[in-house]
């Protein structure tokens, strides 16, 4: 076959596009069954939640709300591409007043607005998916739990790892049923993120000063960089650390009993919150005490983000990022091959130099053997927030329970508020059991 002839054939048999007028997606719910949703806060995180929600069949966006025209227009335009024609609101009270048929609201506003927004929505009869942290104050977080109970509405907090199949398999099967780690004595976690400039805004898109004031911001810089200001957000232990401290609490069975921490404004000169912190938590497990260290850095990205649980028989390192996920067997632990055969683990490919244990009578002297490293047999086939949103919308439909209702998330809120307190107190702080319950 001549080359030119081949190319023609290749094109003809290639990945040819053609449109079909009818929707291809099986299971796309009819409009009468769809859940009507509004997005409150169309910033960076709101956009992620919007994109992932659009992948779930049977969800219809009817409104977006943001005080910033720039975000509001982005949301409206983006949703139009998906065929969702939405009304855009500047003020959330106005939206709740006009959108009587709205069933659920996704709240992705700055932390200090979460309590008023989530509570306002629940009181108006809407179910709420609210980004973490719940609030920038303990009282704010408690008031959200109270409103959830009083209104009987659903309040899912956006700790999305709680619905991630990799985490669920690790907790329920590997640590639970198979008890591969044995007694857990230590844990650690980190989120290291590279140094970055403060967020800016297109000059022509600045919000008028009186509007900013009305919604609690000093100026446009504070509006865009609210995470660094104490009246608006909770700093990096809250923004980044919340995800992993929540996993420490979840996997270790409850909140810590004490915390000590160090941190400071060591790098950035114009932020209120510290830019780096190191935290030590103490947990009481039924098997005994376990200690956990946690590090957040906003000035270096080395090592990325993960949580690690260390037991006498093995260590689980887990992350939203599969490349940071593995499980290691201690040399003295029972054989894990039976668990491989049961598909709890992916097989370990032993390095060529590892000693064989085929003959127990013959010792083998060489360099220290590597710990056996196994993979987790789970592939997340979806964007990382989608399963948690699916869990929320299923609960709205009355199918199943929330994976992270506000009262459960409150355990992590309290651990983080206490860790921040410990950074400034420069001492160990006890966390009484009654403080951890909202």
């Amino acid at each position, binding site marked *: 076959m001549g080359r030119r002839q*081949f190319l023609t054939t*290749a094109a003809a048999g*290639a*990945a040819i*596009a053609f449109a079909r007028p009818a929707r291809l997606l099986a299971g796309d719910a009819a409009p009468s069954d769809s859940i009507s949703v509004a997005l409150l806060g169309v910033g960076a995180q709101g956009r992620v939640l919007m994109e992932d929600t659009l992948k779930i069949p049977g969800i219809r966006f009817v409104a977006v709300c943001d005080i910033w025209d720039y975000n509001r227009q982005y949301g409206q335009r983006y949703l139009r591409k998906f065929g969702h024609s939405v009304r855009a609101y500047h003020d959330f009270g106005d939206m709740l007043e006009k959108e009587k048929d709205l069933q659920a609201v996704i709240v992705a506003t700055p932390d200090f607005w979460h309590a008023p927004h989530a509570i306002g929505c629940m009181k108006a009869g809407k179910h709420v998916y609210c980004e973490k942290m719940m609030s920038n104050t303990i009282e704010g977080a408690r008031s959200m739990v109270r409103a959830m109970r009083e209104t009987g509405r659903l309040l899912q907090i956006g700790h999305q790892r709680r619905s991630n199949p990799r985490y669920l398999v690790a907790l329920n099967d590997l640590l639970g049923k198979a008890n591969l780690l044995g007694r857990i004595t230590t844990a650690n976690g980190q989120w290291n993120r590279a140094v*970055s400039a403060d967020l*800016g805004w297109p*000059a022509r898109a600045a919000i008028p000063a009186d509007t900013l004031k009305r919604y609690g911001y000093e100026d446009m810089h504070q509006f865009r960089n609210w995470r660094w200001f104490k009246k608006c957000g909770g700093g990096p232990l809250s923004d980044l650390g919340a995800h992993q401290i929540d996993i420490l609490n979840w996997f270790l069975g409850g909140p810590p009993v004490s915390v000590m921490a160090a941190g400071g404004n060591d790098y950035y000169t114009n932020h209120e919150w510290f830019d780096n912190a190191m935290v030590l938590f103490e947990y009481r497990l039924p098997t005994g005490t376990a200690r956990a260290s946690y590090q957040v850095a906003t000035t270096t990205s080395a090592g990325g983000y993960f949580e690690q649980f260390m037991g006498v028989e093995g260590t689980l390192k887990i992350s939203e990022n599969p490349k940071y996920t593995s499980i290691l067997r201690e040399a003295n632990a029972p054989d894990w091959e039976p668990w491989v055969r049961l598909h709890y683990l992916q097989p370990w490919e032993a390095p060529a130099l590892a000693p064989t244990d085929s003959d127990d009578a013959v010792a083998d002297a060489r360099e220290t053997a590597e710990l056996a490293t196994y993979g987790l047999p789970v592939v997340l086939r979806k964007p990382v927030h989608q399963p948690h949103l699916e869990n929320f919308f299923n609960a709205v439909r009355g199918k199943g329970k929330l994976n992270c209702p506000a009262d459960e998330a409150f355990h992590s809120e309290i651990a983080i508020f206490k860790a921040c307190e410990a950074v400034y107190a420069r001492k160990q702080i006890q966390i009484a059991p009654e403080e951890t319950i909202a």
Partner: protein
Amino acid sequence: MPDPIHVFRHEAMATFFEVRIAGGERAYAEQASQAAFAIVDRTERLLSRYDESSEISQINRLHPGEVVRVCPDVFECLEQALSLQLMTGGAFDPAFGSPAGADRGRLLMDRDGLLVGLEGGRLSLDLGAIGKGYALDLAAAELRAWDLSRVLLVAGGSSLLALDGPGEGIPGWEVSLGGVTPPRSLALENRALGSSGTAVKGEHIVNPGTGEPARNGRRTWAMAPSAAAADALSTAWMILAPDEIGSICSANPGIGAIVQTGGGSDLLTAGCFSGILNPRK
């Protein structure tokens, strides 16, 4: 005195992205670049075949008859990839690692629903030869939203996208053609340039016709209105015969080719490149 040029770099897609902005305040340029780099990172998350939850990975896992909903940016990137595949007669192939012949699946695309389905066999998309350029196109749109227009964007040194030139009376951003002797350059303005060769990554371009690496020792440059197209076409120019390149350039306004064969000073030019090459200053 010419305006200062602010340069910012960011690591993504296993290489470096760079934004050059002429004039204006550096702090504003830096924040705009950061917003543009965030778009690049998002594009990588969507397009990477190495990320198990990316939209491209989701498409690559489809079995015949299955469908996945993608975001508008992925849909548009796929549409561009497919039209470039047709334009080049398959020399640019966004799924070159797929099975051959009847085992090769075909994409079904529904623009209204932003749905991508698979028909037939298997398909393995790899947007490595268009993704960097596509990310530059999206990043440039962000910089325009910040009212920045005297901009040059670069991905990995091989994909360049120029908006307006760096200053009044300067005919575009000067770009030299790497590895060409005597040195030659061109002025790039409101166009994109893609380049391919085998000097850095070795024989990494596979001829979809033969399944063999392109071994002709060429260097190629492609000009196009978008960085995605320039990126993909420079790969196609590595494989196509000079007369085929010439006829694609004459059939498609705004497209151009430079092909250096055999490492010498002989440069074949076609399409909109004709007459714009200068000796390097």
